[in-house]
């Protein structure tokens, strides 16, 4: 044993002395190995950290560990990263209770959250509508005998202000483009609205004038925007319990048994907030949190410019008194004598790095209290219209109870894109029947003398025997009600029934009993996810439910594949670097072997076996590998440690989500270093095999080369 160790020692000694003797070669080879091992350590540590943080984001925000849906679905389920307004085309699961029972029989399942994903465009109304709505309400109260004359005058003044703004707009469009750019009827409407006669007419026929204003003038205010809302219908209580990073930011959660809507805070800020205020927030945050400057950042400059040019949204909100107040405050703040409030606002929003903090403060202290900052406020009722599964439009009124966000992911678009509503309202919007609706429909059908017709034969019944082309919703025929309840409700006075729908309660047991599209599963032991998925599918089969289970990574679609892609790029880079290293080391060792033929021959002559020579060369390259791989790994550990100390800033929304917060603090585990060293040693060892083979072929006669 001692002899073997001593021999090894001499091998190592020869190897190291050789390395030292060929310093340049050693440095070149070592440099490549050093770079490669540093890359492996830093790369794998970063990818692992992003993987871990991203999985926290995805699992903790909506996907859970596993998503389960109907195996007969047309599409694959994607809860994230989908850009479709509607969710995937999923077959329904009729009875969530049975699904829960099957899932709960799997030992590793901890929580099951019912879900359904869809989306709708929601009209949020514009400023003119709001002002005219207030005026209409005042008129109604006046007609009811209340003395609201002063209030009506103030509101009329506001409408006049708005018309003034719109008239200027139309005139500007005419100047910038051509007169033809403005439709003649729009021009006529503006002219009529601007004339003093309108308000004489108003006194005589207030409702008629309001109708004109609502129909002809309000649409001209282009601040009317649709909200694009994607939402999850779920059991709000179970959702909050299972996704414990969820927190209510404004308002309250949806009370049990109540229909309601929770905005994602991100969407609420992004889509519902006054655009100017939101941009001001973003500029302020970018400077404060990310250290950006307006002078150097083109994005911030663009927002400043937009704010300075798009003041109409604010102007439309101002009545006469507010306008005067704004004029006074802005003149004082800006030290200007300008009378035009829109010009004053423009100047006010032309912020720079020197005044942004003061202007931001001034805006929220002095101007914002007079403005409606959010088009939909907490407590308002939101009318959501969506296409049902069978293609009809269905609408529900939902009270907005509040906003929510996921802890640490507040600024992430990916985590913040989904809003929440109760599952019962979701079923209504999606076109699923509920016991309550079925009773309603039965009554209506009886009243209207309707008959049930077979869905398959519906077109033949309605349009004659030739019309046999299948309906587009054929894919879900097994799940759709025989007659679309929503269409009936919509067409037969359902609107009346839906009055104050937002205040209606439902039996929380309905959440359990009805239809769902998918369910998020939280497991006890995340390491057993693959086994749990198999168990879930088996449990579904046993219960007669065609369940398909996918892990969070698959459920999160492209987002989930992101880390796999980064990992692939990293490994390909590493492969290329080490392939190059292998060739270079191999060549260098071949050269070194050829230069040392006499020495190798001598060693053979004095009694060194071939394996000794092979071992010598392998040790030589392994020594280079271990030494420089070790140094490279240490440098890698140092780099990751430094990154952990300072944090890698998330410069955009995607990174914010991947990092599970504003900065990534990467961790390093021994496995990162082990992988790097293993790759280095394998490559070093492999690259010494051919030179070793050459060395073994050297004859001891080479040592005797003299004069013959």
């Amino acid at each position, binding site marked *: 044993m001692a002899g073997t160790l001593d021999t090894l020692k001499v091998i190592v000694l020869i190897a190291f002395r050789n390395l030292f003797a060929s310093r340049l070669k050693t440095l070149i080879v070592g440099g490549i190995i050093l770079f490669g091992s540093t890359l492996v350590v830093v790369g794998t540590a970063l990818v692992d950290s992003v993987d871990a943080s991203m999985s926290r984001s995805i699992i903790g925000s909506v996907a859970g560990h596993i998503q389960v849906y109907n195996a007969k679905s047309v599409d694959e389920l994607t809860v994230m990263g989908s850009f479709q307004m509607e969710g995937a085309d999923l077959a329904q699961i009729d009875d969530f209770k049975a699904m829960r029972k099957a899932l709960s029989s799997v030992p590793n399942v901890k929580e099951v959250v019912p879900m359904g994903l869809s989306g709708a465009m929601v009209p949020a109304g514009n400023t003119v509508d709001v002002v005219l709505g207030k005026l209409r309400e005042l008129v109604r109260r006046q007609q009811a005998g209340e003395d609201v004359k002063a209030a009506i005058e103030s509101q009329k003044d506001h409408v006049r202000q708005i018309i003034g703004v719109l008239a200027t707009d139309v005139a500007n469009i005419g100047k910038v483009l051509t007169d033809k750019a403005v439709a003649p009827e729009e021009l006529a409407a503006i002219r009529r609205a601007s004339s003093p006669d309108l308000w004489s007419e108003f006194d005589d026929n207030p409702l008629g004038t309001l109708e004109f204003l609502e129909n002809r003038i309000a649409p001209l205010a282009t601040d009317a925007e649709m909200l694009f809302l994607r939402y999850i219908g779920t059991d709000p209580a179970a959702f909050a319990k299972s996704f414990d990073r969820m927190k209510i930011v404004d308002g309250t959660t949806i009370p049990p048994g109540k229909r309601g809507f929770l905005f994602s805070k991100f969407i609420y800020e992004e889509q519902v907030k006054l655009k100017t205020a939101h941009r001001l927030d973003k500029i302020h945050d970018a400077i404060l949190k990310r250290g950006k400057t307006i002078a150097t950042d083109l994005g911030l400059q663009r927002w400043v410019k937009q704010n300075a040019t798009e003041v109409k949204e604010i102007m439309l909100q101002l009545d006469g008194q507010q306008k005067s107040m704004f004029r006074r405050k802005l003149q004082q703040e800006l030290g200007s004598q300008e009378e035009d409030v829109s010009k004053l606002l423009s100047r006010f929003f032309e912020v720079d790095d020197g005044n942004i903090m003061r202007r931001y403060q001034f805006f929220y202290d002095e101007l914002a209290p007079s403005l409606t900052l959010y088009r939909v406020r907490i407590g308002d009722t939101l009318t959501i219209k969506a296409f049902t599964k069978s293609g009809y439009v269905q609408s529900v009124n939902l009270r907005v109870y509040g906003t929510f966000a996921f802890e640490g992911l507040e600024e992430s678009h990916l985590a913040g894109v989904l809003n929440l509503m109760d599952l019962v309202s979701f079923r209504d919007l999606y076109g699923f029947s509920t016991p309550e609706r079925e009773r309603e429909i039965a009554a209506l059908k009886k009243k209207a003398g309707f008959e049930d017709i077979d869905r398959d034969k519906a077109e033949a019944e309605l349009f004659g025997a030739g019309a046999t082309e299948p309906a587009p919703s054929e894919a879900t025929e097994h799940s759709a009600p025989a007659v679309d309840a929503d269409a009936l409700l919509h067409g037969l006075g359902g609107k009346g029934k839906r009055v104050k729908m937002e205040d209606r309660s439902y039996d929380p047991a309905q959440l359990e009993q009805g239809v769902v599209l998918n369910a998020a599963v939280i497991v006890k032991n995340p390491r057993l996810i693959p086994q749990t998925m198999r168990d879930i599918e088996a449990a579904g089969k046993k219960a007669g439910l065609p369940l398909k289970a996918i892990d969070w990574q698959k459920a999160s679609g492209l987002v989930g594949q992101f880390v796999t892609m980064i990992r692939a790029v990293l490994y390909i880079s590493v492969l290329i670097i080490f392939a190059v290293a292998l060739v270079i080391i191999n060549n260098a060792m071949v050269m070194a072997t050829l230069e040392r033929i006499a020495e190798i021959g001598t060693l053979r*002559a004095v009694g060194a076996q071939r394996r000794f020579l092979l071992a010598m060369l392998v040790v030589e390259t392994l020594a280079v590998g271990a030494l420089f791989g070790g140094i490279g790994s240490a440098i890698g550990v140092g780099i990751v440690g430094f990154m952990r100390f300072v944090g890698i800033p998330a410069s955009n929304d995607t990174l914010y989500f991947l990092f599970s917060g504003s900065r990534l603090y990467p961790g390093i585990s021994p496995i990162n270093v082990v992988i790097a060293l293993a790759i280095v040693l394998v490559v070093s060892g492999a690259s010494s095999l051919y030179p070793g083979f050459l060395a073994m072929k050297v004859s001891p006669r080479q040592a005797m080369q003299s*004069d013959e």
Partner: protein
Amino acid sequence: MKNIVSVQQVHKNYSLGTFVVPALRGVSLDVEEGEFLAIAGPSGSGKTTLLNLIGCVDTPTEGTVAIAGSPTGSMSERQLTRLRLHTIGFIFQSFNLVSVLSVLQNIELPLLLQRSAGAKERRERVHALLERVGIAEYANHRPSELSGGQRQRVAIARALVTRPQLVLADEPTANLDSVTGTNILNLMKELNRTEKTTFIFSTHDARVWAYASSVVRLADGQLIDRVSAEEAVRVGGVAGAPTAGTP
């Protein structure tokens, strides 16, 4: 005395493309233990080829070679290597020291390959030999820091450290000046006498024949004769060459 080397009717041919070059043609030679034998001949006469065959670094095309009573023809490459390691010591014309190892490590190397001696024994043997060849103060020097004569002394020590029965020296003085060459031959001669180690060395320099106990003369791959050193000097007619027994 027992034969340490027995070469019988050995032929060795080398192929140069389509040509076959005979290096040795039917050489037979027996060397007794304790001899100090010179193999003499001009360049190309087959001296080194004969040494290669005796040293088991090459195999004959025809004929047999036996070392210490063991025929080498049937031995595997591995066995031949073991035989070299345990029975034969080599001294090369160009010293052939491992440049990256120190003097001490160079001498110790064969012992490490043998794996039989412990560290203490190795050190003792190496130091004794360093003293013996007169380079103890250079133990930690690198070969590149030594003169030619000193390097050859290291090579001699390395050849003897395993206490081989046979030492083969290929033109040991060819790269040395005459004074240094003489000193080296004297050293080898002394070791031959005191250690009873058999020395076979090749040389084309007739002046060193006088050191040998006998001289084998080769020409064109054939053994011409085997004569005493005196006879060889006389026949070789080299004026002023030292006579046998001259220290």
